[in-house]
Structures are given as structure tokens and as C-alpha cells.
């Protein structure tokens, strides 16, 4: 009994389950995931799920019953070890062989792991899965000090939750500013000040050389500096899970290479989400994105095309991050801009930085400014007058005409 097989049971797989049935496909769908849970959302893991504000029921992409009701075979705790393109089948760790007519690779990504002296001590955590967060939540109950390695969005979201929960939090960042990889010096400075004002100790230009401890971590070693701690969370980036695709001879290069239809170098194999490297016709270049909207939309497109459709994935990337009571919403990449302008008031924690290139809007970083975020989604790639964007007296709606 062949059909559509999905490798991975993350957000893309959860969306694939819905999209395939919504598109009218009635054949077999099998989702194979190596985690114990049905597909769940990862963004809340470093936010409301970590804080305990929401539970598992709110994190699932769809209730477990959904897969049963829609006749979708969801196999959890099932790791795929190989893809046989000749026979059109996948083999699991347990030795089961599952045939496919079309395959969707949605293997996502995994945290970059530190391999330095002491990195195998207990008390050092990474944050990617719900099991990771459940362990961290237990550890946080008895810890009074937390050291976060890496000042990216994950690390800073965790810092916000932890310092609010009463922990003494230190963020150690190797570069000369937090969020260096993903935003401008101006935004880095704003977030640096924000976290410092809430009591987070941020150390930039600080590389981690090792961990000290007797069985369990008790200090992070950074050259001459020693950060005493009870708990460490490392957030230094992710690596796309391309190994299965690569071993099957599919073209890869900083992700699994797909075309604008989500198809890999094998016409019967599609891929979606964090694991892909895809062309973006709006930005006119290839991208590998670490983002939920990308996983969802690319999956919708891939599913439609697997069923004979002709859809092109051409979305402007967008992202969000919640820290404290601040909602950051981003469209595009600020690094695409050659100039910027600010609308709103940084001191009031309500502002948006618009980025333009040759007079056209290419990105926004909007803090507590949903209107500016929404306007940028619509203004993307269009010319705009920076003076008007920056002038709060000019209604945003008028810029859309």
C-alpha cells in the first residue's frame, strides 16, 4: 500500500497532514517522526510553554485525534535511517520498509552542539524539543543561577522568561553584540539595554572555552572569567538535517536543494521547512530559513504540487520574537537595506525600523507595532518615502495607495 510518506513530525508534517486532505487527496498518508509527540509548535517552547503559561494541549499543531479522524498514520518514536529512491521506499531504525509514491522530507534542524572541555557535564541543556524544555523546567525549579550561551533569539527569549521567574541570568555572547547574526547594531543595542534593565547580565566578546563541575556543571569558563552557575542553556544556532537526503544522493548545499515548487532533484521527493534551501523569487536569491511561516507555506505549496498542482513558493519571509511584554515582528532582512528610518519612540518601547534599498521597502523590525509590521508586508519591494514612513502624523494607510 503505497502513498505519501512524510519524514519528520514537526510543524511542516502537521501542516502536510492538513494540506493533503484539504487538497482532496484520499490515499494513504504516513508521518514518521523520531520524537514521542504528535507534531507540535516549537516557537512557544522558548516562550509561553517554558514559563508554564500554556500546556501541551496548546502546543500541538493539531490534536492527536485529528490524525485518526483524517485517516493519517502517525508513527512517533520512528526514526528513518535511509531512503531507497530506486525502490521508492524508506527504512526505519526498527527495520520496517515503507513504500512511497511521493515523499516529503521535513526533517527540520537540530541545535549546534558545543564540543569543548566539560560539555558532557549534566546541567547543560539545548532547547529544541518539548522533552528538552520539560527537562529545563524541572531544572529551573531548583536552580538560582542560569548561564545562557549565545545571545540569539532563543537565548534571549529564555533569558526573559528566566529572569522574570527570579533566576540570576547571565548571557554569554562570543560576538561583539547580541543578535549579531540576525539584526542591525541599532536593534542589538535596544535589546541589550532592555535585558540589562530587567536584570540580565550580558557579556559580549566572550567566547566559552569550557565548563567546570563535578558531574554537574557549576561554572562556565570564558578565558579569565568564570561564570558560576547551576544551569546552562546553549543556543548557538541550528544545523539543517540533510543527512538522509544527502545519503540518498539528493542535491544538497546549506540545506536540501529544492526548486520553487518545493521539489528536490528527484521528481518524486519534495522537501519543506528548516531543512530546505529554496529559491525565493521575490528576493531573487536562495534562502535557508529557520522559521515557522516558511515551514507552513512551503509545505502547503509542496503538498499541492505533489498532488499535481503547479504552485510557486514566493513569500516574503517574516519572523517574530516575544521577550517580556514586547512583541517583535519582522518582515524581510534588515541586511538587505542601504538606509533605514525609525517610526515611533524607542524609549516608549513602541517603534519600527523600516529598511529601504534604492528607495524600496525591504524590511521592518517592529517592536510593539503591529500596524507597521502589517504595512511592511504589503509595502514590501515598493517605493516609499522615508520621511513619510518616519512621520507618525502620516497615516500608514495612506502609504499603501
Amino acid at each position, binding site marked *: 500500500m503505497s502513498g505519501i510518506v512524510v519524514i519528520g513530525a514537526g510543524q511542516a508534517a502537521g501542516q502536510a497532514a492538513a494540506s493533503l486532505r484539504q487538497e482532496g487527496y484520499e490515499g494513504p498518508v504516513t508521518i514518521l517522526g523520531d520524537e514521542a509527540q504528535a507534531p507540535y509548535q516549537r516557537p512557544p517552547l522558548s516562550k509561553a510553554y517554558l514559563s508554564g503559561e500554556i500546556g501541551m494541549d496548546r502546543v500541538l*499543531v493539531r490534536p492527536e485525534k485529528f490524525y485518526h479522524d483524517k485517516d493519517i498514520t502517525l508513527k512517533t518514536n520512528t526514526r528513518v535511517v535511509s531512503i531507497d529512491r530506486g525502490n521508492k521506499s524508506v527504512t526505519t531504525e526498527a527495520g520496517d520498509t515503507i513504500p512511497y509514491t511521493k515523499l516529503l522530507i521535513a526533517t527540520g534542524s537540530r541545535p549546534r552542539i558545543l564540543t569543548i572541555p566539560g560539555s558532557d557535564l549534566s546541567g547543560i541543556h539545548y532547547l529544541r524539543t518539548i522533552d528538552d524544555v520539560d527537562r529545563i523546567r524541572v531544572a529551573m525549579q531548583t536552580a538560582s543561577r542560569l548561564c545562557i550561551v549565545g545571545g540569539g533569539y532563543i537565548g534571549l527569549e529564555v533569558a526573559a522568561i528566566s529572569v522574570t521567574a527570579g533566576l540570576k541570568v547571565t548571557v554569554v555572547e562570543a560576538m561583539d553584540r547580541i543578535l549579531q547574526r540576525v539584526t542591525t547594531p541599532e536593534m542589538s543595542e535596544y535589546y541589550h539595554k532592555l535585558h540589562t534593565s530587567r536584570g540580565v547580565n550580558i557579556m559580549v566578546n566572550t567566547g566559552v572555552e569550557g565548563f567546570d563541575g563535578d558531574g554537574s556543571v557549576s561554572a562556565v569558563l570564558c578565558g579569565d572569567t568564570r561564570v558560576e552557575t547551576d544551569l546552562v542553556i546553549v543556543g548557538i544556532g541550528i544545523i539543517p538535517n540533510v543527512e538522509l537526503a544527502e545519503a540518498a544522493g539528493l542535491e544538497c548545499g546549506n540545506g536540501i536543494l529544492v526548486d520553487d515548487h518545493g521539489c528536490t532533484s528527484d521528481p518524486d521527493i519534495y522537501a519543506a521547512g528548516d531543512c530546505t534551501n529554496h529559491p525565493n523569487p521575490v528576493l531573487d536569491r536562495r534562502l535557508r530559513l529557520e522559521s515557522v511561516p516558511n515551514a507552513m507555506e512551503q509545505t502547503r505549496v509542496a503538498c499541492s504540487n505533489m498532488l499535481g498542482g503547479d504552485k510557486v513558493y514566493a513569500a516574503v519571509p517574516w519572523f*517574530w520574537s516575544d521577550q517580556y511584554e514586547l512583541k517583535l515582528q519582522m518582515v524581510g532582512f534588515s541586511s538587505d537595506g542601504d538606509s533605514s528610518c525609525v517610526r515611533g519612540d524607542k524609549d516608549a518601547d513602541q517603534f519600527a525600523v523600516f529598511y529601504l534599498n534604492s528607495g524600496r521597502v525591504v524590511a521592518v523590525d517592529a517592536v510593539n507595532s503591529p500596524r507597521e509590521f502589517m504595512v511592511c508586508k504589503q509595502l514590501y519591494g515598493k517605493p516609499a518615502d522615508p520621511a513619510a514612513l518616519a512621520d507618525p502624523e502620516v497615516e500608514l494607510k495612506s502609504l499603501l495607495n
Partner: protein
Amino acid sequence: MPTVKFIEFNGTEHTIDANNGESIMMVATSNLVPGIDADCGGECSCATCHVLIDADWRARLNPGSETEESMLDLNPDRTEDSRLSCQIVMSDDLDGIVVQLPEFQY
């Protein structure tokens, strides 16, 4: 168990049993009601779960937050009936609520 009646832009109706405490967005996505994308998963971050609810039903809902209002403000399909369905939590009081879906999510 309260029900929600979704009406797609093309007129197709779906009457769905909802659980109390579930958002209308979740009721839709858990039951394959097309027309709601809900990309952010219910965090009021994306505005892709836009729905239209008439005045009589709207009067029974919790008022939208400032964030919700801001997210809706620039939606090209926005009307006075607009709400984000992730922000409406089902309860017995809302049994039978009628939810119209727009043609597109942005």
C-alpha cells in the same frame, strides 16, 4: 458542546463541535475548515486567522485587544465585523456562533 458554523467565502458551510476553552482558530484548523492559515499558531502575531462575525454575535465576545485591532487595521478585507479567530475562546455562551471566512488571508 458548543458548535461553530463556519461559512467559507464561496458559501460552503461547516458546522463543527467545539470544546470549551478552544479558540475558534483551533476549531477551524483541527477540523480542516479551509480559509484560516493561522501561521503563528495563535499568538496574535500574524493575522492569518481573520474572520468576520456579525454585530449580534460580536456583542457577546470579549473585546479585541489593542494588538488585535492593530493587526487587523491594515487588512485589505477588513470590515467592522473583523476579528482574529485565535483571540476568541469558545464557551457554551457562544453555542451556534456564525463565522464568515474572507476570500484571502494576508
